[in-house]
């Protein structure tokens, strides 16, 4: 859990307090903290003067606006057809072994979350993953373990 503090107010000053300000505000909270806490959503509702149910209803519609605890690095593995044909399962297996978690879980130290996602637009360089917003493509088990080792050092 993180404390939102003044963040919501700052973001509302930046993006405005209209209904159309909602997505940019939620997106920026997620960029900073990786997921939305109940407290953050209630705070956004207060700033924008809309019901918290509206905020939750909107956030929960979008897969990138997580309302469950997520780690500092969210690994999204593409599972759509080409990535699936080109070795997605090996990538998942490598990640699960390295991070000692299953798909859908977050490491105990809250550093990594591992999830599957739909097509991320790198079919010609499959298999591909996103770590937060960075794409990594043409992966092999060796390549992905090097990448994760780097993130572990960060």
């Amino acid at each position, binding site marked *: 859990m993180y404390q939102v503090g003044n963040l919501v107010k700052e973001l509302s000053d930046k993006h405005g307090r*209209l*209904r*159309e*300000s*909602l*997505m*940019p505000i*939620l*997106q920026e909270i*997620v960029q900073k903290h990786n997921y939305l806490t109940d407290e953050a959503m209630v705070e956004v509702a207060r700033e924008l003067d809309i019901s918290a149910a509206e905020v939750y*209803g*909107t956030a929960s*519609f*979008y*897969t*990138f*606006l997580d309302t469950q605890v997520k780690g500092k690095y969210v690994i999204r593995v593409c*599972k*759509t*057809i*080409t990535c*699936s*044909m080109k070795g997605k399962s090996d990538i998942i297996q490598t990640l699960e072994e390295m991070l000692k978690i299953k798909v859908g879980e977050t490491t105990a130290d809250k550093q990594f979350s591992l999830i599957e*996602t*739909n*097509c*991320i*637009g*790198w*079919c*010609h*360089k*499959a298999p591909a993953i*996103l770590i937060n*917003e*960075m*794409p990594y493509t043409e992966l092999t088990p060796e390549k992905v373990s090097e990448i994760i080792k780097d993130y572990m050092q960060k």
Partner: protein
Amino acid sequence: MEKKGLNKVDLIFEKIEPKEVLIKAFKMTSAEIIQNILESGLKGRGGAGFPTGLKWKYTAAEKSSEKYIICNADEGEPGTFKDREILDRVSNKVHGGMAIAGKAIGAKNGIVYLRGEYRYLLPKLMIELESFHKMIKEIGYEFNIEYRMGSGAYICGEESALFESIEGKRGEPRNKPPYPTVSGLFEKPTSINNVETLVTAMMILQHGAKNFIQYGTKDSRGSKVFSVSGDTPTPGIFELELGMTVQQFVNEFGDGDTKAVQVGGASGFCVPRKKFAETIIGFEGVPTGGSMKLFNSSRSMYNVLHNYLEFFTEESCGQCTPCRVGCQQLLLGVEKVKKGEAKSTYLTELVKLADTMKIAAKCGLGQSVGNAFKSIVGNFREEIIY
């Protein structure tokens, strides 16, 4: 616009400075720009293929002090990745196309809706947008573009869902009519165009509609960018003249063992080997937003269909019952048949369900699930059953 070899074209990625063509366009009247685009026969490059000139004409005809140009960069169709490449390589042409569209319909504001998966591009795009705004100002024209991000929802590529998303709501498609040209973003007249469409429109003004219609066929004018993936030795992005057959495409990109090509992504059509020669890629045959996936004989078409149905089940917004329940039942249905829990004749029932979804679903997502379902089940029935 130079022909390279048989049918490769270099229009979208051709390096030009948009300044000259923008100066030319801003001196034209709205009607003149629209007339050029109408004459070119340009159809939307996102997949649906609505004539761009008509869309602009309808939006221009609306009386409103506020109108919008939206660039749809929520490229989510499995197998499509050309819009990312276009934005990455020639964003100034995308911004230029938006300004021209703005002039055509009478809008001073444009918004690019970029899918969340492409956020890593944003810092670069912001720098390029700044120099674009500077250039526009230099030639004494007023047009402002901003970027809004998606957050991982395929359905937001549907135009009215995209408006809802920009407005800060769940990305649930609206009822139509009213169409966006009358009531779009914030209920204002809106022209929403695909990334590639906007660039193509600008290049039509650059080279002239007469040159453009030298390429392609009567129903599918010009060239377009294809995203090629799957079982091919040369995956990637290729700009090709429209009008080729699937056979010609496979001759160029296949691995010698191609058994099927999925044209148009998960919402498109599966073309089996025996129909390669007779099927034209374009609006007279199988239309595509650019997604071309090749499958060779080592692939199970059951796995392909299952993957697509899982995709739709997850990406259905859940608002209308035919799509929400239909996708789930199609997925469960093929699983049951595969496991032998349902007779093979059950597939006929599922095809009826897909037909019902085409009629009853609220938006393009639910309406097009049947395209892949029926063309895969129809052509590879034994692979689904056994």
